């Protein structure tokens, strides 16, 4: 049992462990992430401040921990939202394959694959106004396409099977067939394949806060910290180092977890 699901356990262990690490870290760090101490501006890394302080004297280690925690929360929530949204729309499109509904949904997923979405979400967010809720909304709006397309293909494959036809014969409504008979059968495949979009969501979230469109300052976020470090890059290289390192670590580990899962199937 344990051996059979070893890949699943390892992969979810990597993601959950990393998330937990930043959650716990944010709890136990002593320095406040937003407290401005002007006497401790631009300090080198030391025992007191492991990664130094920024131009307002804030401890970079604790800011990184809070920022990474927020990054995880945003992207995992957006991932869940886009996954459920994509499963539902993909299920509908696959069930009524060839209808106008399917064509509309497929048009949208196709469009979302080929447009330069980074530019579009930046423009959309600067009109809607920056903030966490809008960032969730926009990320979900972009990311539902991949799970929807995967669900649609799997539903088309599965819907001619006998137990679905039996459900038809017993007179269930299409919606309850989709929700109770078809989707449970395709969820595992889609779930595993769509872990791969999680690193992309994390990168997008960092990009949004890089453009100042994520969470509002002074709350720390990885992208905003990198921008702040950028203006001091030649003077104080350590400001940008910790958030960059954390972002790269998160993306690569989640990607490795996704790869382990994908090889399992």
């Amino acid at each position, binding site marked *: 049992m344990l051996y059979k699901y070893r890949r699943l356990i390892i992969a979810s262990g990597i993601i959950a462990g990393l998330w937990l690490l930043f959650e716990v870290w944010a709890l136990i760090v002593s320095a406040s992430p937003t407290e401005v101490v002007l006497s401790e501006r631009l300090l080198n890394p030391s025992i007191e401040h492991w990664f130094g302080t920024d131009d307002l004297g804030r401890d970079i280690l604790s800011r990184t921990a809070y920022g990474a925690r927020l990054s995880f929360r945003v992207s995992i929530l957006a991932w869940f939202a886009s996954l459920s949204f994509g499963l539902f729309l993909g299920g509908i499109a696959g069930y009524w394959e060839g209808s106008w509904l399917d064509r509309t949904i497929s048009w949208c997923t196709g469009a979302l694959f080929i447009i330069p979405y980074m530019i579009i979400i930046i423009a959309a967010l600067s009109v809607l106004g920056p903030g966490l809720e809008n960032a969730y909304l926009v990320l979900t709006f972009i990311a539902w396409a991949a799970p929807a397309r995967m669900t649609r293909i799997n539903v088309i494959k599965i819907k001619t099977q006998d137990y679905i036809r039996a459900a038809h014969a017993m007179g269930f409504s299409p919606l309850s067939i989709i929700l109770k008979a078809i989707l449970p059968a395709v969820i595992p495949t889609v779930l595993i394949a769509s872990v791969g979009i999680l690193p992309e969501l994390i990168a997008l979230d960092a990009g949004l806060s890089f453009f100042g469109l994520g969470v509002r300052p002074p709350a720390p976020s990885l992208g905003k910290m990198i921008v702040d470090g950028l203006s001091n890059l030649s003077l104080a290289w350590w400001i940008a180092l910790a958030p960059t390192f954390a972002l*790269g670590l998160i993306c690569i580990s989640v990607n490795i977890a996704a790869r382990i899962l994908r090889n399992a199937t």
Partner: protein
Amino acid sequence: MNQTGRVFCYYVSLLFGLLFLNFLLFNVIPSDPSRIMLGPNADNAAVEHLRQEFGLNDPLIKQFTHYIQGLLSFDLGISYTTRRAVWPDVASSFKVTLLSSFSALLLATIYSIISAYISFVSKSGFRKFFTALNSNLMSVPSLVIAIVFGLFCIRWDLLSFAGTGDVRNILMSALVLTIYPSASLSQILLEQTFTLDKQPYIIEARSFGFTNSFIFWKRLLKNALLPWISQISNVVAILIGGAAVVEVVFSVPGIGRLLFQAVLRRDLPILQGILATVTSCFIIINILTEFVYWFLNPRKGEIHVV
């Protein structure tokens, strides 16, 4: 309707959909563009005058046709902050971005073909190595690569030409930008190479005693490049998003830096102009990709629909 017509219709509908979205985003959702332009303390008569001037009191359809007419004559409006026409600024910075993106794409092409060649010819662990490397490189955000690269440049004092917009500056951003397309295009080519490896016509060529190198260049590459080409437009879409960030880091005067400044100043006409230019350019790139695919595909008439 035949396949070609359908593909064409798809892209035209996509173009209109995106332009309509663009129009809605900037002309309908913000409560009052003229209020933003004049500031919160302006008197109502001035705001009303500006609304008349911009045609904001007209019905929506009339505004949209007016907007499309403006696009066709490259009139993208006037910037809120600089009070200059948007199009010249967008065009000049878009040229820089296109240059760096295409040099990045060129480097990516070279890398992907070389990596596929090495792992095809030497049957050892190279394929596993490249696959793992590519997969991890693909997942690293271009922001991280840019910062790491920038830190090294500062270490060796290489950033003296940042912000000048000369060739070295553009090349620097191209070097960072090339990581993502290299990895993802190489991944596609590697997969395709090893799918085709089991095809009868390759086995046949091998049984004739041709060397692996000959088989790769003369028999395999052209077929392996087909799915590669169909993926290029997706890769470029992500590449442009990365360029937006990388150009801010290296202060390249491209579309990314213009976008960054426009977001900071909430300069909606510039944002709208960038969005319209980039999306229209993308539709053109996609149509070109379809055409190249059709041209290279020996099974003519079978057009690939994205």
